[in-house]
């Protein structure tokens, strides 16, 4: 089932079915530094909110988890992606979930994981939470949920 969207008229059209009865789950797997995926996903997420279409959560997997680091310091004239996700999530009460296995593999951890593995510093940005892949799989149990993947 193909999903495509246009935002030139500030509204979302989904080919083949009505978006009105659906909700979305966003999956991102791409690095925030080397791809445009996060910026596009942010734009899409914001449009869902504007159009009052439910966004269940945003799930970060593989290289995308690094966006949840509290230590990313891009130059001030470049997009502040972590900050933008944080502001979006807090304003709209949307969960930002990073896969715990992918995170640990890449050196990202919350306070609990840091304590468990005796690592000096937790580095998970406050707006993000650690989650298992099971939460993504469970989110798909709802047949009205459409998964959209940015890579």
């Amino acid at each position, binding site marked *: *089932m193909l999903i495509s969207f246009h935002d030139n008229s500030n509204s979302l059209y989904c080919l083949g079915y009505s978006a009105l009865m659906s909700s979305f789950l966003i999956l991102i797997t791409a690095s925030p530094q080397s791809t445009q995926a996060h910026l596009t996903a942010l734009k899409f997420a914001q449009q869902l909110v504007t159009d009052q279409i439910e966004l269940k959560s945003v799930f970060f997997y593989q290289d995308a988890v690094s966006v949840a680091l509290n230590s990313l310091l891009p130059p001030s004239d470049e997009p502040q992606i972590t900050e933008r996700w944080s502001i979006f999530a807090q304003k709209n009460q949307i969960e930002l979930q990073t896969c715990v296995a*992918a995170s640990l593999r890449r050196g990202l951890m919350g306070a609990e994981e840091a304590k468990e593995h005796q690592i000096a510093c937790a580095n998970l940005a406050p707006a993000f939470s650690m989650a298992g892949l099971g939460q993504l*799989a*469970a989110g*798909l*149990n*709802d*047949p009205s949920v459409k998964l959209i993947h940015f890579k």
Partner: protein
Amino acid sequence: MPQIINLIINQSTFAGSHFKESIDLALVCAAFDHQVNLIFQHDGVYNLVNSQQSMIIGEKSQVDLLKGLSFYDIENVYADIDSMQTRSFGIESLLIDVKLLNASELNRLNQQADQVVVL
């Protein structure tokens, strides 16, 4: 309510943790009773080749991971026949039994799925 989830792997092996993480997602979805179709396409078919010698670069073998798929309820494993042919290997070169599909059969499989994720 379980859904039909097509997971397409189109990157070759040893590209970091990509393969392992893709399989992890398949395993977890199957554990949550979703019907998982695992599809190897383009460079992803290299993951299936039986002549891999990962110990040479200090990597764990992918054989066990692939052979364990059916044990974890992933029964439907497909490979794109065109991708294999353009890379010059046939079904006898594969580590596990897969169903070979051509482009239009794959297209149909994707049309029938509730979700399609390309990893």
